[in-house]
């Protein structure tokens, strides 16, 4: 395989495939667990056996979890169509040019795909597919046209903020890492880490991107590494994502073969190496200082900041840590210009955001939308509304660090700022939709249990605070609540917010506090009337209809 040069990359074209038509099978974890592998194998077998001139391809995930396994069919000169929820036999009948109108599905309208631009489109295991989609043109542009400072400038213009939770401006992280003094200005002077330790319940956009378009994240890492002056990057991916790890490793190996990683990339003097590190499943290791400790081989404990990792990070060297989704945005921004990107979005929240819609929603799945879209549009237009004709009750955003938003705020345009005002956060973009059958206290208990289980135990406010809060919530849902319990809950939450060492503990009270704010009457019903109107809390009576 030839090492790619700048010139070769300019003229890169894969050999044109014969115009025979193709069938693509969505082969992310979601698809595979819905039976995609069997279908894919059957297609391959059948096509070979019967010598059918149809190309069978793999691709990532289109985000339509509700319709898995998902198959895209373009044969017989007809426009491509999507089929969902097919079993093996039905799928095979497609080869015989049958049409199955009852299984046709359509992508939800109103999306704007930047991060997910290649997901479900290309074969994630083929670098050639990515190269065809302007792959590695952005790093070329950074190296040969922009240089590090202007690369950062483009990101600044784009208004890109961290997609992992807190929404810190990406350019500032990079600039600070670039400008911080390092004790070693050679090969290991600075580091870039991709945080793929996605752990929020109900959030899986990072997995989807890593599985569906690994090269765009790798390219994002290269650009970040180039911009901050780093020549070593680490993918930190949770071990529960074996397919993501496999695809990233495969993609890294392809890059080395093409000379896109290693020494003198595209014959420039930019050297860059990538390695993968697996997280052992602790939620707290998504917190950047704990993540660093984990990579260093130490117990995954967070440490106080400052010093921030951009000043003192991995092995004491300046380190930029970016989330998967953030990095997947980067090549697009560099290629299309920061200004262009910044036209999407609202206020201080520019660009798109991928949301993972789950819960009582009709079309669960991933949706990438421009920021500023209202919750109502996302839930009803893209998500198709509430399942089973039930009444919408609330939506939980931002995972265990986020909050519960009631229907009064359905028309809020979504942005980092607006969600914060509502007592929630953007977080990684999980959206758990609740209907009338969900109990506000029970939901708060669920998230508190999650934080209790995931508290690392280093600092007292989080370690004991989550335990006490959970105990009180269990008391309330068990029918033994007392009014003063609410005061105690609020006091514990306040102390946790103020005195916890890291983001996990500081934000752990958010779901509870926001549910208490929005649904205090339900808490009081639980405590005083011993009633759970949703009927979720078994120790209590359901409110008579």
């Amino acid at each position, binding site marked *: 395989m030839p090492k790619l040069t700048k010139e070769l990359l300019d003229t890169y074209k894969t050999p044109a495939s014969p115009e025979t038509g193709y069938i693509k099978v969505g082969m992310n974890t979601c698809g595979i667990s819905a039976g995609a592998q069997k279908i894919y194998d059957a297609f391959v077998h059948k096509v070979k056996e019967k010598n059918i001139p149809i190309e069978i391809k793999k691709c990532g995930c289109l985000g339509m979890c509700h319709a898995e396994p998902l198959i895209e069919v373009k044969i017989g000169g007809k426009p491509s169509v999507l089929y969902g929820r097919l079993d093996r036999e039905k799928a095979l009948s497609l080869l015989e040019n049958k049409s199955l109108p009852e299984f046709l599905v359509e992508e939800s309208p109103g999306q704007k795909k930047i991060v997910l631009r290649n997901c479900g489109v290309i074969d994630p295991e083929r670098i050639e597919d990515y190269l065809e989609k302007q792959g590695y043109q952005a790093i070329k542009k950074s190296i040969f046209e922009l240089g590090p400072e202007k690369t950062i400038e483009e990101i600044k213009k784009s208004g890109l903020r961290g997609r992992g939770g807190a929404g810190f401006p990406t350019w500032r992280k990079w600039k600070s890492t670039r400008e911080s003094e390092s004790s070693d200005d050679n090969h290991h002077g600075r580091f870039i880490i991709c945080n793929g330790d996605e752990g929020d319940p109900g959030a899986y956009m990072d997995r989807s991107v890593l599985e569906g378009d690994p090269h765009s994240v790798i390219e994002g890492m290269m650009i970040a590494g180039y911009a901050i002056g780093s020549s070593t990057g680490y993918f930190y991916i949770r071990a529960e994502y074996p397919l993501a790890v496999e695809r990233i490793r495969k993609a890294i190996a392809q890059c080395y073969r093409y000379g896109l990683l290693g020494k003198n990339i595209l014959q420039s003097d930019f050297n860059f190496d990538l390695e993968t590190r697996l997280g052992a499943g602790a939620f707290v290791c998504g917190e950047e200082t704990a993540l660093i400790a984990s990579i260093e081989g130490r117990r995954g404990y967070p440490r106080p900041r400052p010093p921030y990792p951009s000043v003192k990070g991995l092995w004491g060297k300046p380190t930029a840590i970016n989330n998967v989704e953030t990095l997947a945005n980067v090549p697009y921004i560099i290629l299309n210009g920061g200004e262009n990107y910044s036209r999407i979005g609202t206020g201080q929240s520019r660009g798109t955001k991928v949301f993972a819609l789950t819960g009582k929603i009709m079309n669960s799945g991933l949706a990438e939308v421009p920021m500023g879209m209202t919750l109502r549009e996302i839930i009803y237009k893209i998500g198709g509304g509430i399942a089973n004709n039930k009444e919408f009750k609330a939506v939980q955003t931002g995972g265990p660090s986020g909050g519960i938003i009631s229907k009064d705020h359905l028309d809020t345009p979504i942005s980092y700022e607006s969600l914060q005002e509502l007592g929630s956060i953007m977080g990684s973009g999980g959206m758990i939709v609740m209907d009338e059958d969900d109990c506000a206290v029970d939901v708060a208990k669920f998230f508190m249990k999650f934080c209790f289980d995931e508290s*690392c*135990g280093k600092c007292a406010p989080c370690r004991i605070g989550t*335990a006490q809060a959970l105990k009180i919530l269990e008391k309330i849902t068990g029918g033994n609540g007392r009014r003063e319990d609410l005061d105690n809950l609020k006091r514990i939450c306040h102390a946790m917010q103020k005195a916890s060492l890291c983001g996990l503990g500081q934000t752990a009270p958010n779901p509870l506090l926001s549910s208490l704010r929005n649904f205090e009457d339900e808490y009081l019903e639980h405590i005083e009337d011993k009633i759970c109107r949703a009927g979720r809390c078994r120790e209590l009576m359901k409110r008579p209809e």
Partner: protein
Amino acid sequence: MIHARINGIRVEVEEGTTVLDAAKKVNVKIPTLCKHPDLPPTAACGICMVQLKGTDKMIRSCCTEITEGMDIITLTPEIVEVRKTVLELILSNHPNACLTCARNQNCELQSLAAEFGIKEELFGKILKNLEIDDSIKTIVLEPQKCIKCGRCIQACQEMQNVWALSFAGRGLDTRIAPAADFTLVESPCVSCGQCAAYCPVGAIYVYDDTAKVWGALNDPSKHCVVQIAPAVRVAIGESFGMESGELKTGKLYTLLRRMGFQAVFDTNFGADVTIVEEATEFVKRLTKGGGVLPLISSCCPAWVDFMEKFHPDMIPNFSTCKSPHEILAALAKTYYALQLNIPPSSIFMVSIMPCIAKKFEIHRSREMFVSGYQDVNVSITTRELVRMIKQTGIDFSSLPDSEPDHMLADYSGGGTIFGVTGGVMEAALRSISSFLTGKPLGNIGLNDVRGLKGVKEARIKVGDYTLNVAVAHGLGNVEYVINKIRNAREKGEEPPYHFIEVMACPGGCIGGGGQPRNINDEVRRLRINGLYTDDSHCKYRDCHDNPQVKRLYAEFLGEYGSKKSYDILHTYYRHRKEYKSYRETEFLGESE
């Protein structure tokens, strides 16, 4: 310099100062729990929260560096509320066992609860039954009382480089334990006891041997004798409201007699004998090729244990001399027993030590039973003695001074400075100089080996020899010295040193794990000065000049380093496993 404000008060401090230390400078007290002045902040507890003026964000003062122009508020109703809630949370995860706790009235959590005026428990208790680990019989681990401040782990891992303790479990299940849930006796623990010295609560404490001492004192068939280590005399006063470093030797002699001991000895005498033997050994190695150089001091049992576990290749370099308290005990049950015609079987020797590892040392090998019986029957720490004093009701501070039993108690200045880092080296060099040149060491204060620097190196001219020496204290500082020796050995070069002194505890024995608490460098300095003052007031400064030592050799042992000396006063070393199964924990047990 950094200029900032704390509660409106201007403060000027050096760059890198924490908010907590800056506040101290202007006499603003911020309550703390997990922070210890000797150790880097662990940022665990969340008590020391303060606020940046104009924001609602709270920060930990223990680990936040103050920066130019910072405006810090340390006291608002909200801050107090947060601190108090955090404290209540900690208390809800801590048993209410104060009355029977090893740390009753001496517990940092208890004091804090009192300061915050906590009168009721609003949160229910969340407690798990966790087993007490007293397997090692030197320290006791009571994980249920642990507040996870992390100090013991810093002490064990970073300060002492032993790594016997670590965090196990996660979240609410976090606890301190040796790796893989070995028990302490199976773990690499060397019983230096620094973990116990830093524990703010009763989660790690000294194994209590006072009952054995009371038992012996109340047994008419026993002839109870006692010895006190050098470091005890400059620290015990702290427990009775006296200044650190004040010498309490005479009071201790009186006290011990009043407690019922029939003879009161002084470990300093044992130190004098140790030096005479060790200096003889050194001179033999230096001039007659009688063994390898550098010679490494062996009077610290935690260090000996550490070396046997982690650096067994250094065994040939070790001095074979026993530690002073073992030497004294061996002499008490041989020489003293002969002189007074008391059967050694009836002598009950108690040693009062700043040290926890001595509890291990008294049965570490056969040589500790040279009299035919366990030479030291019980070793108790300074803190245990304090408890015994309080039980007797004796008013320690008003005790008159008195004399010990001179035959095994009179000491030189060299003997008393055994309790400080560099002291063994200095005492040894004084005698080495005399042995080599026949003249005392000119400049008797060897400033280069004194002080609290972790590793002290010096080059000292003695007659025709230029001796390179190194002093390390705190086991974490040993590796540097050892590696230097190893590197030279591997390259076939001359060893970089002739003589090395190591003490496991920072500051030496005065900072021992069994000493009164609230240790920090200031306290260490005061105690060190106390012993140097004692040295300067001694009639004899050099160990071999001690007339009682001369008498001992003349009447009993013969020459320095004689066969008899070797039989009674020396010991041997072997490689010990870092981790072992319980069956392999080779305790010899008591002889009785």
